[in-house]
């Protein structure tokens, strides 16, 4: 199914929660959605027989300087087609509902996005830092991240 | 030992004044030292041979830097172990920690007493030979458990528990597999067992070919004994890749050396028992060693015994570098569900065979056919 068809299906079902389709210059096209409706859209994308996106390839946080975004890359084993879903988030305390009950693969990716970007995922099974030590301050992959001078007395 | 002491006294007049018990005591110490030297050199050379055989099997060379072609490697290892600082972990149970290696070494060295090296070459021809070996080698369990518990390390504790479960549950098949040899020889003493395989039948006199059941019991014994001495298919107590080397993880220096030597001591004991009970011990095939004068008879029989024992040790090393390791529950299942029933059936088979054919094996019957 083509990106446009998927977009129309979602637009039909969720109306204004589905904002726009970024397809020019985006290799798997992106459907931009409102952050609040991510869980319902995710469940629909997985359960709908025509779409059946059963495998979450990659979930990544992106810092667009003035706003954050969480990009989901989905793929369907049955229909062998792929789509991207993006949710833009405000810069201060970005958060959106988790999808790790829809795709269990999301847990580690969400923990990484939380760890490196500070994006909180409400209702996540266990959201803690994955790559950095627990008591690390700051989220390194943000564009405005300043390196701490010392960490437990070790020069960074 | 007294007979030997008496013959020594009247052979050397100036000893007449010394009381008999002192002479026998002195003699025992001398024999013990000889055996200890043999055991230590065997264990040293054994570790070198193990690494050379491993190198050969794994398409590489093995140690060749110390001495010509790596011959003195085991001396280097020994010196290294002695010079290394032997650390005792902070809140380890100090006394038990220091005691454990001695238990393990004594457990494995004490069994050398009854090993029948040659016609007259045996430290003490105990009439309860095999029973004594079974009792003494189970001392190793105590040592390993102590080591596991006292080094206050979770991995060591797990290693110790595994060792206890393994060695105890494999004692039964080892014991059961040796009893056919006892039934045939009619005595527990190892010298008698070896003599029962002598005679002019030569190679066919061995217990191995006595009847099909003893043939199986040799292999059962060999497998079970490998398990009892923690050899590779069963080296769970010091499983390098899981328990980071199990019970001897906190040991270093000469204490670790004792565990290391004891392991090779056990290896030799298993090989010695296998040769004595199933492969005709020091019997020179088709030739009676007693007829030779005293010194040559012993040397020849010693040579035959050692070649057979070393062949068994090499086979153990060969198996060691081929097979992966069992899991603990599979280990237990193998002992209780496979080895124990098989050895019992085997034992039944041997005793029925001896009852029916009045103690004669297949080779014996064939020989009696030809008169």
């Amino acid at each position, binding site marked *: 199914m083509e990106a446009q068809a998927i977009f129309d299906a979602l637009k039909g079902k969720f109306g204004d929660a589905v904002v726009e389709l*970024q397809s020019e210059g985006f290799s798997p096209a992106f459907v931009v959605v409102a952050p609040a409706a991510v869980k319902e859209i995710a469940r629909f994308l997985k359960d709908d027989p025509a779409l059946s996106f059963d495998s979450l390839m990659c979930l*990544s946080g992106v810092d667009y300087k003035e706003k954050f975004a969480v990009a989901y890359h989905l793929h369907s084993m049955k229909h062998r087609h792929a789509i991207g879903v993006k949710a833009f988030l405000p810069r201060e305390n970005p958060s959106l509902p988790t999808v790790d009950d829809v795709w269990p*693969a999301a847990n580690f990716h969400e923990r990484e996005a939380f760890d490196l970007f500070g994006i909180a995922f409400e209702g996540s099974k266990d959201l803690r830092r994955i*790559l950095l030590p627990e008591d690390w301050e700051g989220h390194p992959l943000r564009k405005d991240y300043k390196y701490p001078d010392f960490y437990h007395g070790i020069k960074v | 030992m007294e007979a030997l002491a008496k013959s020594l006294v009247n052979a050397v007049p100036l000893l007449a004044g010394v009381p008999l018990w002192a002479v026998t005591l002195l003699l025992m110490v001398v024999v013990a030292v000889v055996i200890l030297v043999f055991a230590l050199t065997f264990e040293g050379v054994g570790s070198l041979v193990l690494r050379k055989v491993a190198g050969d099997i794994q398409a*590489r060379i093995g140690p060749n830097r110390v001495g010509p072609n790596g011959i003195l490697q085991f001396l280097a290892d020994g010196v290294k172990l002695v010079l290394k600082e032997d650390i005792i972990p902070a809140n380890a149970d100090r006394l038990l920690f220091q005691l454990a290696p001695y238990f393990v070494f004594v457990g494995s060295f004490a069994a050398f007493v009854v090993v029948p090296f040659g016609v007259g070459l045996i430290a003490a021809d105990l009439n309860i030979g095999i029973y004594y070996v079974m009792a003494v080698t189970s001392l190793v369990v105590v040592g390993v458990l102590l080591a596991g518990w006292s080094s206050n390390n*979770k*991995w060591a504790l797990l290693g110790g528990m595994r060792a206890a479960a393994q060695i105890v549950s494999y004692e039964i098949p080892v014991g059961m597999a040796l009893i056919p040899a006892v039934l045939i020889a009619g005595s527990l003493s190892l010298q008698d067992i070896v003599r029962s395989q002598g005679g002019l039948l030569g190679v066919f006199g061995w217990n191995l070919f006595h009847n099909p059941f003893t043939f199986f019991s040799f292999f059962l014994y060999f497998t079970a004994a490998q398990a009892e001495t923690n050899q590779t298919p069963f080296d769970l107590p010091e499983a390098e890749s899981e328990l980071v080397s199990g019970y001897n993880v906190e040991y270093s220096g000469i204490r670790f050396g004792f565990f290391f030597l004891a392991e090779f001591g056990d290896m030799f004991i298993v090989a010695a028992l296998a040769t004595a009970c199933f492969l005709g011990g020091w019997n020179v095939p088709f030739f009676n060693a007693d007829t030779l004068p005293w010194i040559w008879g012993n040397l020849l029989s010693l040579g035959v015994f050692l070649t057979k024992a070393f062949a068994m040790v090499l086979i153990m090393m060969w198996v060691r570098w081929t097979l992966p390791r*069992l899991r*603990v529950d599979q280990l237990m299942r193998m002992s209780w569900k496979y080895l124990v029933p098989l050895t019992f059936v085997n034992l039944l088979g041997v005793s029925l065979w001896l009852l029916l054919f009045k103690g004669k094996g297949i080779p014996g019957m064939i020989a009696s056919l030809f008169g």
Partner: protein
Amino acid sequence: MTIRTDALPTQEMTINMGPQHPSTHGVLRVILTTDGEVVTRAVPDVGYLHRGLEKIGERVTYAQFMPFTDRLDYLAAMNCNCAWAWAVEKLAKIEVPERAEYLRVIVCELNRISSHLIAFGSYTADMGAFTPFLYAIREREKVNDLFEMICGNRLTYNYARVGGVSGDAPPGFLEKTKEFLDYFEPKLDEYNNLISYNKIFVHRLANVAVIPAEEAVAYGLTGPNLRGSGVPFDLRKDEPYSVYPKFDFKVCVGTGERGTPGDCFDRYMVRINEMRESIKIVRQALAQIPDGPVLAKVPRVFKPPVGEVYFRSECPRGETGIYLVSDGSVNPFRLKIRTGSFVAMNIFEKVTRGLMIADIVAVIGSFDIILPEIDR
């Protein structure tokens, strides 16, 4: 007499299968809570090898990031190099000459063989048999010689370039590769006789950590871990890139040969069979390789168009997906690398519930994880 169990409170033991452990294939720490030998909960704790590759990616240019992809999965550096080159070429729509694509496929498949050899060797070493590990390393050294000939280094190859490869095959390289393949093919059957179908090895692996097909898909497993559960999904076949459509090879799938489909033995056997398929691919590639240039014209100051691309390629440890956001400047704007081992650790806690400590080692070996890929 009744055993007063209340009086003897048995406590669960928490063991640190710590970052420094002989069989965690790198600095992985697993916090085991065990009841005796049986593990009640095994929580992986990753991050000990986090070097911030994605942050470095935003500081260096597209060409300068190539040597860093060697450090992503150092056992399959060629695959990661080529993945990065393919991703940037997809973003900037660069046309790569035919010979360069063939060379890339040859070195990627050779690297798949050498990576699976390490997976096979270290797995049998974890199970206690050291000899196959030495045989695997001996074969891998021959592959390293080939790589040293073509790109000058034995581990961090840095061979691919955006728009082609750094150097053409030196004289004698193609013949030597053919020689290696003929030498290597019978070795696989030898390994199977030596260890794969060995009774103890099969007992240690069969029916351990079974992952049904839909659970593997739900947890996003990829590569041999996914195919081990019976899902015939191979990116080289289902989302063909480069010149893979020109070769015919079979997708090896776990069939539950010695246990149920999706157990450790299946994942292991998929890797062994995949080595045979890679031999087939390299042979066909050697036969059909055309002549021609090996590097396309790429402007010195390389500025890709603005846009976002997600490219994934089939690496030995699963799918390496690169999500590349470019704002038209010389440096990538955002770079997310998703790897097979990272996702395998996700399912680790669920799969190892109720196994024994020796099985934890078996599961780690069957997923063939490698830590630089997880922590990046």
